[in-house]
């Protein structure tokens, strides 16, 4: 028998075939698709996240769980209005101009998505004006930038300046990360937050969303 608990467990196990069966069964039973998402699929990822943080799950396992959740989502999504889709918030993410590192960025995206954020990936070597254009187009709550080189970290600064110049800096929280980046640097250039790695970035974004929207957002 398919239950919400089975769905959660299936997400945790990362079983791509089984999830389809389970979710379809619940849909057929007439269960509210939003309930399937919140109490089944996302609930599963909510077990995954702390296990990853405590070192009991590896990234590839988390990714399998995320893929499994997404597989389930595919079935319920068509049944819900876009506006009703549960989301913690929207974030655009990119590696700054001149910098080609993307593993860290991709890990972050994976972690954010599997924690219920909608992520727009701008890729690597993203120019200042492209960050601005993406903010204008996607209207995210958060902009995330990473730099892995001492010679590209100043591009974070120039991107923030560009956001100010184009009048959209106040619409977003800016979070930054990467090997040479520090909290002090974040403070210096006026970023809103700094995160050491992908696993702490989610907490940071949760705090940011809390500042933006109040408690509501986090428990969404």
């Amino acid at each position: 028998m398919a239950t919400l608990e089975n769905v959660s467990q299936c997400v945790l196990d990362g079983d791509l075939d089984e999830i389809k069966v389970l979710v379809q069964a619940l849909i057929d039973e007439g269960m509210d698709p939003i309930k399937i998402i919140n109490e089944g699929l996302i609930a599963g990822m909510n077990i995954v996240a702390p296990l990853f943080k405590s070192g009991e799950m590896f990234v590839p396992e988390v990714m399998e769980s995320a893929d499994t959740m997404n597989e389930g989502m595919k079935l319920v999504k068509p049944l819900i209005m876009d506006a009703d889709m549960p989301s913690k918030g929207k974030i655009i993410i990119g590696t700054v101009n001149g910098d080609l590192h993307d593993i860290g960025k991709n890990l972050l995206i994976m972690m954010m998505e599997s924690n219920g954020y909608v992520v727009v990936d701008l890729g690597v070597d993203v120019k200042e004006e492209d960050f601005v254009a993406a903010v204008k187009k996607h209207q995210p709550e958060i902009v995330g930038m990473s730099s892995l080189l001492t010679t590209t970290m100043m591009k974070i600064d120039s991107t923030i300046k560009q956001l100010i110049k184009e009048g959209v800096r106040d619409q977003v929280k800016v979070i930054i990360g990467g090997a040479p980046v520090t909290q002090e640097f974040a403070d210096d250039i006026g970023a809103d937050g700094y995160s050491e790695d992908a696993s702490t970035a989610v907490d940071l974004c949760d705090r940011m969303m809390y500042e933006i929207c109040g408690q509501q957002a986090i428990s969404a």
Partner: protein
Amino acid sequence: MAKKFNQLAYRNLDDFVYGSSPKPVTTKSGMVIGGGTVYPEINFTLPGMDINDSTIKKAATIYSNIIDGVLKRAAELYTPGVLVEYETLPDFTEHPKYGIEINRILINSMKEAAEKYGLKTAIRTTPNDLREMNRPPVMRSGKYWDTMLELFEQSVKDGSDFISIESTGGKEINDSALVKADIRKAIFALGVLGCRDMEFLWKNLVDIAGLGKDCYAAGDSACGFANTAMVLAEKGFIPHVFAAVIRVIAVPRALVAFEQGAVGPSKDCAYEGPFIKAITGCPISMEGKSAAGAHLSPIGNIAAAVADTWSNESIQQVKLLSEMAPIVGMEQLIYDCRLMNAATENGQQLIFRDLLVKSDAALDVQAYVLKPDVVFRISAELVKTQDNFLRTKMAAQLTVAELKKAINEGKVKSDKRDMKWLDKMQKQIDTIPDDAIEFYNQIKSELDMDKFIPSEYGL
């Protein structure tokens, strides 16, 4: 004509020690790398700053301060010689005039140090691989290829002793293989794409090295592959056993440079070095605890066991309580080398090598695969074929088997999940055919074709 490596360069495991190698390389200044002495290899980089026409002068001053500082300290501590590595930041390869200027500054300061202190030095120039600036990467032509070669050529003409690179062929596929711990894709990335790119690239680099006087093609590093895996494993993101296997499957790729004519010392961050040394007899550069400022690792001591130069990988020009960080790095490397060389002078290098090994080998699978006897056993199998792809597949099989055995026999600490992952990898490896093209056809449908261009690899 590519060289063939069909047997080990050593007969006796006891001869396989740090500081000496069957094929030493002599620099213009008279340093004999692999000739008995371990030399420090110092690396450094800029603090956080923009690079453009208005800041390049400042950057040049910083490099000048760094090199003068480290060479002064090296002389004060009576080091028998220093290998300097200049590894460029992208801006310095994209605008070769920047990179050329810095390289000349370093060479000049080295000359001054020779006059002032009688210090022996040599320089390894390592342009970063710019070809990945195109997405998907364009590997064999185009603007980035041209500027990169321009920097190589001029550096060689200006007097660089060694040229190296951390080449990135196949990285576009390997990146996602790592975070998914997908061993099949990693074998494709390293064993097919990596090896094919190395063949093309190093043929060119060996020719370029030939343009200089006593300039040598030194070797490559699978840094963006195997060291990224190690860092991800240290963070607990991927299994340590996966990172250990990646390390060894990077060996056949690294070997291609030597088949094409590279002579060492191989790159510092290429921990595949011990295998290269066992197979080719060429000297290698390694890095460990004294490179902790660049990356933490589980192989702080064992990395030195058969090293011929000992490196700090990289450190920014920041102030510590005593001095600027590169000077601190120089001092630490020199003391590490002094200790190893003191043992050699006593005829105790084998004892010391074995202590370096004992220190780490049982505590992490990534250290375990660098044990000289493990290196010998795996290398002895790899030389049985001359097919780079097959070698890569074999490297994976052999490493999985070595690790299973070691864990079962309690010879190395392991995570309770490690055996599961080794089984999983073995199963995946078993699905791989022995022929590269057959494998390519098999895996093609799983590859993200937006990310790579087959023809850039002759596919």
